[in-house]
């Protein structure tokens, strides 16, 4: 009892301390513009800069925000499951001249979740540190990130053979997987125009953004020290920016879908307070006769069903109809409660869940679906949670 009170108290205080911390990480929850004098503190994201690999697999510490974000839809002997891991890097405007080893110049945060549909349970955990020799490191030459103390270490490393090795040791769960790009999509998919991805009506709101869709995943997870082997597909995003969202944006909806036929779709929309789309974009990559075909379009998200969180009272459109180009898809969650309360690290509450996808014509009015899903992936819904009242 006492333990519980303490824990909740500590979380509350921590939330109080750091809730604005990652406001910029998940745009829309907070959209304070950088102050005028801050604009000089970070380089701007400009069109026309070509991404170069493997250098751009690494970190870009001069920019304000950066993340590596991997979502996986997996099969295991005990059923389907979802897995998500995100590393955030954030550069503060402070401590630039501070010789202290604790100068808070760069913050590194990480977030991992395991979605278990058979138990309708989401296990998640988070870590946050300022960048420092032992506990929080990243490479600027390739994807090589590590955070945490030895008994709670989380790492994501890209090998020379372009294989991602991910290992997470969280309190309630562990997993260790490798994610390999298929031969058909061996090169990173550069979003937007050559990796310059506009996030709002204006050009200044943009990021450098590339994806690794259709990654083949092998590995195992452990809950209560019982290893279970898993396999499936994953999606990796790597994005960095100094200013993301327009002032009138409150949140965004994003999907990354791996189709069973080998094609992949990324779509997002940035919403205003009233829920209208401020900006949307989609890129569908199909594989036709071994050749990649790119289809760039806008995307229309239509809400089909809401789920209300019993914890935060936030109401999320967990089932959506997504129309982009010739695609007309129904996106259904693996299970409803995949809300992430990351108030312990980022202070953000959002929904991020494993989903299954059907063609719209395979789903009847009453919701019954014909046949097997044609794609799996992740749906991210941000900016729906009310400001927490403590």
């Amino acid at each position, binding site marked *: 009892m006492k333990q519980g009170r*303490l824990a909740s*108290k*500590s*979380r509350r*205080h*921590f939330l*109080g*301390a*750091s809730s*604005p*911390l*990652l*406001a*910029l*990480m998940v745009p829309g929850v*907070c959209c*304070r513009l*950088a*102050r005028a004098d*801050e604009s000089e503190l970070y380089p701007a994201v400009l069109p026309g800069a070509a991404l170069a690999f493997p250098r751009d697999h690494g970190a870009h510490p001069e920019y*304000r*925000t950066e993340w590596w974000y991997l979502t996986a839809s997996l099969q295991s002997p005990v059923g389907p499951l979802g897995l998500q891991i995100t590393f955030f890097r*954030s*550069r*503060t*405007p*402070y*401590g630039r001249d*501070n*010789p*202290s*080893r*604790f*100068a*808070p110049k760069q*913050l590194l945060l990480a977030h991992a979740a395991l979605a278990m549909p058979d138990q309708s349970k989401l296990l998640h955990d988070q870590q*946050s*540190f*300022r960048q420092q*020799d*032992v*506990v929080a490191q990243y490479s600027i030459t390739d994807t090589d990130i590590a955070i945490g*103390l*030895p*008994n*709670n270490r989380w790492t994501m490393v890209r090998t020379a053979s372009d294989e991602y090795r991910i290992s997470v040791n969280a309190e309630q769960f562990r997993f260790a997987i490798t994610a390999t790009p298929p031969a058909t999509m061996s090169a990173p998919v550069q979003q937007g125009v050559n990796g310059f991805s506009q996030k709002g009506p204006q050009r200044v709101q943009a990021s450098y953004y590339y994806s690794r869709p259709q990654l083949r995943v092998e590995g195992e997870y452990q809950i209560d020290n019982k290893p279970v082997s898993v396999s499936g597909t994953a999606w990796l995003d790597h994005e960095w920016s100094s200013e993301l969202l327009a002032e009138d944006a409150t949140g965004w909806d994003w999907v990354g879908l791996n189709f069973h036929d080998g094609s992949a779709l990324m779509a997002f929309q940035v919403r205003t307070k009233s829920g209208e789309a401020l900006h949307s974009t989609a890129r569908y990559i199909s594989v036709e006769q071994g050749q990649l075909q790119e289809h760039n379009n806008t995307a229309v998200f239509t809400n089909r069903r809401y789920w209300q969180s019993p914890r935060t009272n936030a109401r999320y459109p967990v089932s959506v109809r997504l129309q982009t180009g010739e695609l007309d898809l129904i996106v259904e969650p693996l299970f409803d409660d995949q809300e992430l309360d990351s108030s*312990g690290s980022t202070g953000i509450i959002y929904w991020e869940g494993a989903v299954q996808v059907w063609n719209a014509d395979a789903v009847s009015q009453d919701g019954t679906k014909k046949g097997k899903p044609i794609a799996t992936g992740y749906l991210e819904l941000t900016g729906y949670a009310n400001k927490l009242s403590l």
Partner: protein
Amino acid sequence: MQLSLIRWLAISCWRQQPGPLLAAVFAIAMGVSLGLGINLVNVSALNEFDNAISNINGEAQYQLTGAVEWIDDDILALVEQSPDVIAASPIVSLNVPLAMGENNSTVTLPVIGLDIFRAAKVAPSLLPQPDASFQGGGASSAVFGDDTVFLSAAAQQMLELSVGEQLPVLVNGRVVQLTISGHVPGVDNRSVIAVMDIGAAQWRLGWLGKLSRIDLRLAKGVDAQQWLSQLKQRGLADRAKLRLDRPDAAKQRMSNLSRAYRVNLNVLALVALLTGGFIVFATLDLAVTRLIPTLSLVSVLGATSAFRIRLVLILSVALGFFGALLGVCMGIGLAWLLLGFVGGDLGGGFFASTRPSLSLPASSLILFFILGVSAAIAGGLSPAIKLRNLSAAQALKSGQSLTLVSKLSPLVISFILFIIGGALLMLPAINGLPIAAYLAIACWLFAGVLVVSTLLGVVAQALSPRSITQSQPLLMLAVLRMKHAHNRAFPALAGVVASFALVCAMAMMVHSFRVSVDQWLEEVLPASLYVRVPDTAASAAFSVEDRNRLASIDGIARIEFARTLDLIVDPNRPSVELIARNIDKTNPNASLPITGSYLKDADTQSDCTMIYISEPASRLYDWKIGDQVALPLASQSAASTCFQVGAVWRDYARQSGAIAIERGDYAELTGDRTVSGASIWLDESTTDTEVVADIRTQLNTMPGIRIRSSEDIRTLSLTIFDRSFAVTYALEAVALLVSLFGVATTYSGEALSRTREFGMLRHLGITRRQIANLFVYESAFCIALGVIWGALLGAAISQVLIQRVNPQSFNWSMQTHWPLNQLLVAAIILVVLGACTATIAARKAAGRGPIEAVRTDW
């Protein structure tokens, strides 16, 4: 039947003499209230301190600290590589002086520098919350600001500063402006505390590369000390002399430090209770005497001696019950008043000047209630025993009062107690407390009190043949009365002797102490001016330029620099102050107030560094001259260094000990060449004020330095000394007051019981005025004897306090000095007040006419 009879007897007792019974109740109440009041204040102050400490500590499982105030921040990396560590939180914890208010009253503020991410896992209550007005979101959060500071509600209130305002702090004497950017919501509303980001704290507060401590959470089942010894296998961790403590270690240390002081105060309060017990004795003795005819009648009718004993005991329990109840209420009120007006440390200077809120632990309330009742029962024991041997038939016939019948004469008991007391003095302190010495004082006190009535008889006997006695009929009557009925005066005398003996003992001890401190101050303050940087511990320093500028000031004949830092020698004790200063090693007498001899050249170990330890350090750590000791002093060379004790010097300033070391030796050993203070000798040609002004101009970048003349320091020290003993004086006054109650009780009883005698005297032509004079003679004679005997007894007890209690509880020694004038004044006041009290009480009692008085046949 028995019970209702007892009730009837008790009520008749109350009707006959409500005054003395009330006085007895009140005396018990006084004793209980004082004891409880002081106990509650101490408990509250300790709780407050505990609270403040746990706020600064957060809720960490373990704390990793070094032997000095800081550890190298490289150690964090070592710690975080260990797989047994769940979470580690680096902390910079400082008392930062503020550049606010007057120069000579520097306010300091506890500032905690922490990493919010790491602290969240170890001690989340200290996490800061930026105010909503600070717009920076995300990574621009004010939490990480370069110069932001977060103040607890109590700190904002105390400093009268709010969010957005600047907080000017002094870092090495220079002003650094911090911006108040929010709150610390996790600490309670009494804790004055400021929180900063650890990076900003290291940078802005001059602590680069240093940490105060690392808060730790270790994995379940890890043996903490074993883990530490593994960590120490790494050179860096070993050199830092790391220690791993539970966070309550600091409370324990503070509790140990102030314990002797608190126990001393409690013992004094118990003396008041003891005196209260004597008054219960006096009252019951009187009541029993008056009840004897009634009781005799009841006994003849068949009541047993058990019944009589029960009666007295029930009476004493009733007195004790009401007295203790009243005392507990008064004690709570007293504690409340003391906390409000004097503060939690009762002037002892052990706790920061806080105003703790009152805690009321049931254990204290119950303990003092029981003590009050016990004192009353003890007071009733002797009258009860007296009644047991009542020969009812004889008593009925004679109508006379009884005298104490005991198998052992008081002189024998007294002698035995005196011997036991002497033997107890040979025993050492128990757990740092002079318990045996206190018991010895109690034995001697009882021994002295027991013989006092016999002594009165002896003195009266000696006086009776004198011509002055013979020439004055009233005086003769008085002396003869003393000679033959000296036991009747015992209750009054017992209270007077006991309280005056303790007052004398305390006064002698405090006076000796004060004179010793005064002389010591003269010795340790040879220079004219003392300059000090209000330090932020690890880095407080004058730069080399500052030093050169100081030395170049006109009018300065000599200047010496010193460096002080706190060194933890034993984790269970408070830190020892290490003083690196100029010491003439061939003649340390010139630099330090050495007690006894010092180590001659022939006995020194050439490979050891010479240290000079203070008297408390010598006693606490059992170090003697010539001993080779180990100090956890981080040495530049990895090889351990040996230290040799060169001499012991007197020190009243640092109760937990101090070690002086030659500054050159210290610098060579540690590489630390910084200094934090300077002593300045002036030329004949200049004045203090001129030089102080010059120093301020020369060091104008350091507005926070503190310059004091030796005279100022001396005055200030003695003021602090007097304040810390103010409560003692108040307690002594109360003990004397209670003893006056005893005098009043005894003499009103005397007057009543001698009504027939006075009636007879009136028949013989003696006026009422003369009877009153008779009383004045008797009481003045009695009390004067009690006071003189009390003073002698007090002198003996003062030697116990000076030679045993003080060295054993505070680890310092002093020379005896007699405060004759003060004691003479106190004695005269007591005799006059006592005689007045006695006379007034007697006059009230003997107000009836002679016929009526003679007729009274009770």
